[in-house]
């Protein structure tokens, strides 16, 4: 986790002006066509060995960003570079060798494991698909992977229903690790778990990162967790990244009014502090991504909104080294 954004080394993943729109039909009978602006003009880098946290409320496009980076969604426009080569526009066949190097862990460990497959087979499947190991060698790899994630290797012959949520998430992590990836998108990997189990999984992800020099895109809505695990953090609102900075800067000196509002919304686990704290609650709801507000998408809820905010999209600029923000008022 030492290599943060210093601009020297080439990033492992580079995202440029990435846009993803979904066509949907709305109205009671689906009679109206509409476009969901899930991701609009998003650009950022993920450095080798770092953890980039991606936070925002539901529907802000953070999962779409992760899936589009992996080409699990094909982008509407924009480019994604993995290890300096462009992956957008590659055919499925050409993507396959790259898929081995980028993996994903999903939120819900209940629906992402087939109930009819032993966990050994679930973990082994990527090995067989990518022709990395077979027979005895594969069995040894599976045992090693189970051991790596803190499970008994003898569990390989059991089925998912025999495991708790936390243990299933460990299986999903082992499966993601099976083909020795460099980059893992962790899409809310702990939100479905209990507090005491969350801490176990966070520690596990950090240990594995150190051992295997992994690079994470850590998607979450829990700011305290993101602060704990990330090197840098990007904040998304309604399909756009509004602020990105090393985590110390982002949490100690948030520049975007939305980041600030998010931080003020997080309850502090200290009763005396909570009582004294000013409770300025951000008003209203996140608008629809089908017809996002013009100009800055945050302007209808923003306490700092002024003249240009409702018609001019704020520029995505670097205000100090490594600290990016898109706001007219900053």
């Amino acid at each position, binding site marked *: 986790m030492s290599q943060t954004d210093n601009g020297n080394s080439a990033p492992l993943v580079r995202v440029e002006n990435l846009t993803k729109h979904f066509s949907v039909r709305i109205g009671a009978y689906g009679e109206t066509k509409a476009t969901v602006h899930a991701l609009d003009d998003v650009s950022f880098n993920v450095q080798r060995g770092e953890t980039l946290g991606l936070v925002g*409320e*539901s529907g802000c496009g953070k999962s779409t960003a992760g899936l589009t980076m992996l080409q699990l969604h094909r982008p509407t426009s924009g480019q994604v570079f993995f290890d300096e080569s462009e992956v957008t526009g590659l055919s499925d066949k050409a993507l396959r060798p790259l898929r081995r190097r980028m993996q994903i862990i999903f939120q819900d460990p209940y629906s992402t494991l087939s109930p009819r497959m032993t966990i050994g087979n679930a973990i082994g499947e990527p090995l067989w698909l990518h022709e990395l190991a077979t027979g005895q060698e594969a069995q040894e790899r599976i045992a090693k992977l189970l051991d790596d994630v*803190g*499970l*008994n290797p003898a*569990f390989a012959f059991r089925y998912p229903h025999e495991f*708790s949520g*936390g*243990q299933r998430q460990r299986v999903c992590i082992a499966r993601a690790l099976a083909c020795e990836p460099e980059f893992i998108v962790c899409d809310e990997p702990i939100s479905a778990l*209990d*507090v*005491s*189990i*969350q*801490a*176990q999984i*966070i*520690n*596990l992800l*950090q240990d594995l990162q150190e051992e295997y020099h992994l690079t994470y895109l850590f998607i979450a*809505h*829990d*700011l*305290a*967790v993101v*602060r*704990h*695990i990330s090197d840098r953090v990007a904040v998304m609102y309604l399909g756009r990244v509004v602020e990105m900075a090393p*985590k110390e800067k982002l*949490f100690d000196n948030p520049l975007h009014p939305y980041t600030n*509002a*998010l*931080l*003020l*919304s*997080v*309850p*502090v*686990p*200290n*009763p*005396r*502090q*909570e*009582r004294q704290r000013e*409770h300025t*609650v*951000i*008003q209203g*709801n*996140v608008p629809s991504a089908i017809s996002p507000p013009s100009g800055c998408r945050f302007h209808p809820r923003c306490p700092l909104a002024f003249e240009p905010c409702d018609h001019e999209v704020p520029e995505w600029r670097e205000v100090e080294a490594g600290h990016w923000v898109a706001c007219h008022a900053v």
Partner: protein
Amino acid sequence: MSVLLDVQELQTRFKVRKGYVYAVNGVSFTLEEGETLAVVGESGCGKSVTMLSLVRLLPPAASIENGQVLLRGEDLLQLDLRQLRDVRGGQIGMIFQDPMTSLNPFINIGTQMAEPLIYHRGMSKSEALARSAELLEMVGIPDGEARLREYPHQFSGGMRQRVMIAMSMSCEPAVLIADEPTTALDVTIQAQIVELVKALRDRSGVAVIWITHDLSVVAGIADRVIVMYAGYIVEEAPVDALFEDPRHPYTVGLMGALPSLEGETGTRLTTIGGSPPDLEDLPDYCPFHTRCPYAFDRCRTENPMLELVADASDRGHRAACWVDIREVEVQSNGAGASS
């Protein structure tokens, strides 16, 4: 302050194929007028079943085996269903976790909101609708009268939870039971809902039981906290005492597992190893001992009672533990992995 709700030795179990699941095992607590009590614990610890048992909103497989639930001196467990209906929604209001499923999608908001007012308060339909419109404005939904004609799908998650709160408060209950009301919501909306409930509580003087798994929410809203584990209350304390001087190893573990927005990062989170036990037997040992870094012989043979902690700063600070954790050094703090 006087005692509003007095729960004694409540026991609830579920019939399953193999026997029973012991969900609530002799839980006793009190709630005073106007007080906010938080109930904290992980999934399956019995916190929701305890509170649902108070108004007997339980699935058929569950049965209340023992206990008393005295609301202003009247035992709710002895009431027949007709009498109980006056309590549900009348004297005890409830808000549930998922605002998406607790409203009927086929019925407009106005009709749903008017129902308890007509039933409990004997209002006419038009009176009830007028009152519902006022209630919507009170919970921060502008243009209440027009929105009464809308259906649940036309409201966002946060707005639906506001509707639920307005409904549960409509008959001016003495107790409001909020079962994880903010868990399904985003953090900015969660903050709005917490502020709303606090404002309503301060205005109406309703006593609140706030069920949650999130200790950070508790800090901002509760007067007193109950921590539950495996169907038992393991610690009970005023909110300041609990956060500053937690005495049960499980409470300590939960707090260590919380990442924070302040202070050092880069440190490891302390974890509670293993996972919660099955509840298929009533234990004659401390149910937490398998995950407890302080456990010794006695913990494996005797289940501790909830008792006043040593040198308590408050008379209400009780814990169920054989160990005074301030006096014992722990070598390893429950090293992470479960298997």
